[in-house]
């Protein structure tokens, strides 16, 4: 009990920060010394272990209207206190407040590298947006339970700071499990040690399944939203401009855009006339994709992007035009979210340039 008190900074909106209600939603940041409002309950919970040294307050609208700048401003105000721990809210169901709590926690986690904990109800839009970037405790709707929620937030914070906290983790970081510690899963996975080997767990699971007993799968299968098939290209082929996209990692030798062989984040555009001319040389290409043996494609890149055929078809006037630009990326082990973003970005480019339809080749 002789360890120094941890320094804590707390964020509250205009209401909980005792400045006013909706009429104060536009207020800029103010900093108040020590705990304020629910911060007093938080201080009680922290007891001798922690000291709320400052409370920063701003209006819900002020934050919502320019989130990035406001988050940066918050960091400027928080950093001088050199806190060990940061709490925001909790916001319960309040949407703007939840967004502010989430955004500030994210910035604190990234810039100050200390645990940042808040609390929200599952329907709060801040949950989906910030669950990967902050520790968001699960709360009910009602703000009446605020003291209890602050207790849960503090308990999670101690776990995050303590060396024994929740570690069955293989790589040895301190972290508590979402289900056990009441926070929204951060959408990441970590290796843990289970009590039994995978083989033993598999045989037991199979016997349960065969005997009709209940069992719990270790991996819930993904659910995907169904997509309405886009309308077909309306014009005759002879009037269409067709573009080529590929996630097979085909790039010029030297990989000038640094497309990664695994876990890639970027896409690039290459002018097909110079990138894959009729008299191409296999020596001019690389495959930035470690998931398949690349030699066949390197021998003849048309095997991945059928430029030779589309050129022929353009010449024969079967299609109006082969779109001059090739959109290239690598799809090996890429996070779904980034994959979708890249698709949208490439689509914007194609639309801008009047493409009618695309062929996307994957390995």
């Amino acid at each position, binding site marked *: 009990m002789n360890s120094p008190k941890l320094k804590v900074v707390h964020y509250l909106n205009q209401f909980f920060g005792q400045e006013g209600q909706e009429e104060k939603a536009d207020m800029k940041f103010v900093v108040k010394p020590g705990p304020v409002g629910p911060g007093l309950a938080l201080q009680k919970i922290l007891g001798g272990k922690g000291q709320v040294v400052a409370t920063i307050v701003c209006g819900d609208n002020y934050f919502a209207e320019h989130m990035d700048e406001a988050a940066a401003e918050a960091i400027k105000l928080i950093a001088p206190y050199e806190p060990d721990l940061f709490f925001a809210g909790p916001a319960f169901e309040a949407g703007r407040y939840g967004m502010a709590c989430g955004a500030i926690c994210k910035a604190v986690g990234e810039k100050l590298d200390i645990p940042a904990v808040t609390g929200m109800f599952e329907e709060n839009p801040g949950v989906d947006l910030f669950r990967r970037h902050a520790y968001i405790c699960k709360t009910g709707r009602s703000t009446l339970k605020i003291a209890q929620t602050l207790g849960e937030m503090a308990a999670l914070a101690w776990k995050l700071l303590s060396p024994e906290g929740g570690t069955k983790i*293989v*790589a040895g970081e301190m*972290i508590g*499990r*979402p289900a056990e510690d009441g926070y929204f*899963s*951060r*959408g*990441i*996975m*970590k*290796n*843990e*040690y*289970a*009590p*039994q*080997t*995978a*083989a*033993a*767990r*598999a*045989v037991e*699971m*199979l*016997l349960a*399944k*065969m*005997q009709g007993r209940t*069992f719990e*799968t*270790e*991996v*819930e*299968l*993904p*659910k*995907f939203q169904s997509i309405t098939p886009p309308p077909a290209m309306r014009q005759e082929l002879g009037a269409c401009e067709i573009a080529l996209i590929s996630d097979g990692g085909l790039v010029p030798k030297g990989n000038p855009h640094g497309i*990664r*062989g*695994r*876990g890639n984040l970027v896409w690039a555009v290459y002018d097909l006339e110079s990138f894959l001319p009729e008299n191409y040389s296999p020596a001019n290409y690389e495959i930035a994709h*470690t*998931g*398949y*043996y690349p*030699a066949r494609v390197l021998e003849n890149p048309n095997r991945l992007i059928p430029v030779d055929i589309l050129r022929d078809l353009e010449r024969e006037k079967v299609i109006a035009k082969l779109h001059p630009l090739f959109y290239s990326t690598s799809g*090996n*082990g890429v*996070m*779904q979210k980034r994959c979708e973003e890249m698709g949208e970005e490439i689509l914007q480019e194609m639309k801008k340039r009047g493409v009618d339809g695309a062929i996307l080749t994957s390995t």
Partner: protein
Amino acid sequence: MKLQVETVEIKNVQAGPKTYVSDHQLYVNLQELEKIILADGRIQSVNLDWVYPGDRVRIVNVVDVIQPRCKMDPAEEDFPGWLGKLKTAGEGRTRSLQGVSVILSNPVSKRSYSGILDMFEKGAEWSKYGKLINLCVNPQPAGSTEERDFEVAVKLAGLKAAVYLAKAAEGHPADQVEVFDLDLSRQKESTLPRVAYAFLLYTPQHDYQGISDPVLYGAEISQSLPMILHPNEILDGGIVNPHTIRGMDTYSLQNHAVVKELYQRHGQELFFTGVVVYVASLEPVKRQRAAMMVGHLVKNVLGADGVILNKVHGGMPHIDMALAAEACEKQGVKSVLLIQFFESGTSLAEGALFNSQTLDAVVNVGQTLERIHLARADKILGGSAGTRIYNPHFTQKADDAVIDIEGFLLAGFHDHLGGSKIKAVDY
């Protein structure tokens, strides 16, 4: 078929003029082993070094780990199709040493993935081989030896070392005797639930230079259609790991966790009806054909009511395995799959590559690409301080202050055959 594995525990290893085991001490004349290895003209010289748990040694260019084992009867063959003549593996008596393993390095390997093993701190803590006394076998090629030919010579050197060490225990009483006795033709007599094992043993997607490595009785199988094996063939040297460690090695095959788990419960909770071995396909039609045949063999030939499926390292094989499992489920055979993950920044559901409703029983062997950090070693074996250690994003060398590698390259850490307790969990 009946296999009896007699294990002798080795507590310490010492050099000596003669190679033998006495009172759990292994005495080894390394010069004798060196001569045996150098009989292969493809090998110019070989380094043989013992390393002990706690030594600040890092072994690099690791291409395999092998448990010392030998057949006890002269009529039997060690690692048939490799060292020994072609004779079905998995019968008779096999001597095994516990507490020692052979760590095999290829110092001139050009393959991009390089396995490593540390004998100290975290690397040793995480790996099951870091707790053993290990013989590092590190051959150098004779001038004219062709690259792939040398890879085969390296493998044989490792197998020879494994056999040589096991032979030392001749005459020493066994500390443990395991009997693997399974007559597949008797399954109809049993009223127990019948369980088969479908093993996706090979994927050609990462083939070095586009050429497949041999795995089964010395043959490569990337073009093979699904086949049936007796589980003893897996435990007794019928299958040897390809030339890269990727969460699997010969030692783990010799101790195949799923096979041993099924054997343990055989005759009590289940009847182990046998093994189907198949490979992943680059062509969609081949993939479908293999899946169909696996489903048929499991159901109609092995007569199974349930099946465990697993696979070697790779993303694409999840699809092959899922299709095979679906083919089984379609015929009323219940399935459980063992899968791996590749990407930490997603939830488990996002990382699965299939979502058929019948595949509702999945076990995971962990995120095998999760990065681990290892401290600097005092000594490097199997390579040099400048040996490149694979990292997907940057270059690093064997004696850098900290090594950052994906877990599947640390020998003895991850295990696609189900032998580790690592499990990926949503956070």
